[in-house]
């Protein structure tokens, strides 16, 4: 079996297990009347249709009209997702560029790193929910199109992992490589482009995967204070308000939002496959997240 087929199979297998667990829990709750079998202890999540719809009901809801006589829910959600993705894509590009630039600045100047790094770290601890309305109001006075503002909110989340991992990657060549460059009397720019940047690429891509998912979260959250009617943010808010009446619609929008994220990460993975030979790849997202966490600890300590 080819590695790709195996990967697909394990993905489907785990999906099946998750669905089975969901349905199994629901079945058990219904059978026991909401308690753990043989005890009087209540289950943490209720299993009725209003809390946990059947998985297939979620899929069916996608194919039904969103409103009576309206368009199919799937269509509505996909259109909203594409709208949100436009902001997310721009935010991703913007954030990655800023993150890369910061990484270069930090590796060039210890002073800049010492002065700016605490602010960069602090920027990520400020809740995006507080930042988004401020940016929206400021940009409103400047007459900027609103989806561009949303892109900036998305970039605010996307730049961080890229900055951290770029810096780490630019620092990854060992001392002898830098000394070789010195013996060739290479200029700082030559060292950057011929040694540090190529060495940083394997570190950059895991960060770009995190940035891709973060940019979508940023865009969805940014849409709310910007009161954008067309994106996933508004759709999710509406379905959340109507959760007890039609929970399957909220679950359906979660499903679509995560598909957008997976698709986006997929594009980054594809770019990585083309640009980085297998021997140099830091393969999985888990490793990347671990790196992010590890570096964060270093930075904060």
């Amino acid at each position, binding site marked *: 079996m080819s590695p790709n087929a195996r990967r697909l199979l394990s993905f489907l297998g785990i999906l099946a297990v998750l669905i089975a667990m969901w349905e199994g829990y629901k079945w058990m709750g219904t059978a026991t009347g909401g308690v753990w079998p043989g005890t009087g202890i209540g289950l943490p999540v209720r299993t009725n249709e209003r809390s946990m719809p059947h998985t297939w009901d979620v899929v069916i809801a996608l194919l039904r009209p969103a409103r009576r006589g309206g368009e199919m829910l799937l269509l509505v959600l996909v259109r909203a997702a594409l709208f949100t993705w436009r902001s997310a894509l721009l935010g991703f590009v913007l954030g990655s560029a800023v993150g890369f630039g910061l990484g270069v600045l930090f590796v060039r100047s210890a002073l800049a790193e010492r002065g700016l790094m605490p602010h960069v770290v602090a920027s990520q601890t400020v809740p995006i929910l507080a930042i988004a309305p401020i940016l929206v109001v400021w940009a409103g006075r400047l007459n900027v199109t609103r989806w561009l503002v949303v892109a900036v909110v998305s970039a605010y989340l996307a730049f961080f992992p890229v900055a951290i991992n770029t810096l780490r990657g630019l620092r990854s060549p*060992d001392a*002898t*490589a830098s*000394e*070789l*460059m*010195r*013996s*060739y*009397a*290479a200029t700082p720019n*030559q060292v950057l482009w*011929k*040694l540090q940047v*190529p*060495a940083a*690429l394997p570190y950059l891509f895991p960060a770009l995967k995190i940035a891709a998912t973060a940019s979508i979260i940023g865009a969805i959250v940014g849409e709310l204070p910007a009161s954008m009617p067309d994106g996933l943010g508004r759709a999710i808010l509406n379905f959340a308000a109507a959760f007890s009446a039609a929970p399957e619609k909220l679950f359906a929008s979660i499903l679509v939002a995560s598909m957008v994220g997976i698709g986006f990460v997929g594009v980054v993975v594809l770019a990585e496959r083309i640009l980085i*030979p297998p*021997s*140099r790849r830091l393969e999985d997202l888990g490793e990347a997240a671990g790196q992010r966490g590890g570096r964060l600890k270093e930075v904060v300590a």
Partner: protein
Amino acid sequence: MSALSLRGVGKVFNPGSDQEVQAVHGVDLSVERGEFISVIGPSGCGKSTLLRLIGDLTPPSSGTVSVNGKTPARARLDRDYGMVFQSATLLEWRRVAANVELPLEIMGMDAAERSRQAAAMLGLVQLDRFANHYPWQLSGGMQQRVAIARALAFKPSILLMDEPFGALDEMTRERMQSELLRIRAETGTTVVFVTHSIPEAVFLSTRVVIMSPRPGTITEVVDIDLPEPRSDDTREDQRFFELLTDVREGLRAVEDS
């Protein structure tokens, strides 16, 4: 004018702190063009530091270093140095030929000339067939040959080598030594070569410099008057064994003191 001249050269790391180390002290040495100098001595006696002082990778705390009549900094900017370390330090994303071309690229040589030069250098180290391989596809000895080709690609006047064959097995090591002598005969490069191996030092050198630790300084210089050109027969020469003994005794004197 000698290729290399050191007068009263000393190096103190972390001066004034409780981690102060006098790594090199009062080194006087003069090396003529085309000489092959080996530096040998116990671990930590300052061999690498001495090499780094010559190569302008670290500034001396005292004394003067002069390279082809220039300061080391000037010599470095003039690309007088080729350097080879114990690890080959090839750039893993570049093919073998592109690795050899790296210094030429940095020096602004045009692409056609660059690839011609890289091909010639790979011929010199007998790796023509591996030009399009990636470094990880080569054995350790082959990688080290690429590193030597890269160091020689821009025709430096001085080759600084810090235990370049230290990680290789004995057979490969002897083959590399013969190859290095052949290359030097073809290029006329002056070589300063740090090693831990007495036979290696004697086989390769015109002079062997023995250093002692704490502080790192030169205690003895042994002239190697083996017949040229040297070959595998040299290793069985009576004189070769005598010189091994001379160097060994020089080293023992250092270690006993």
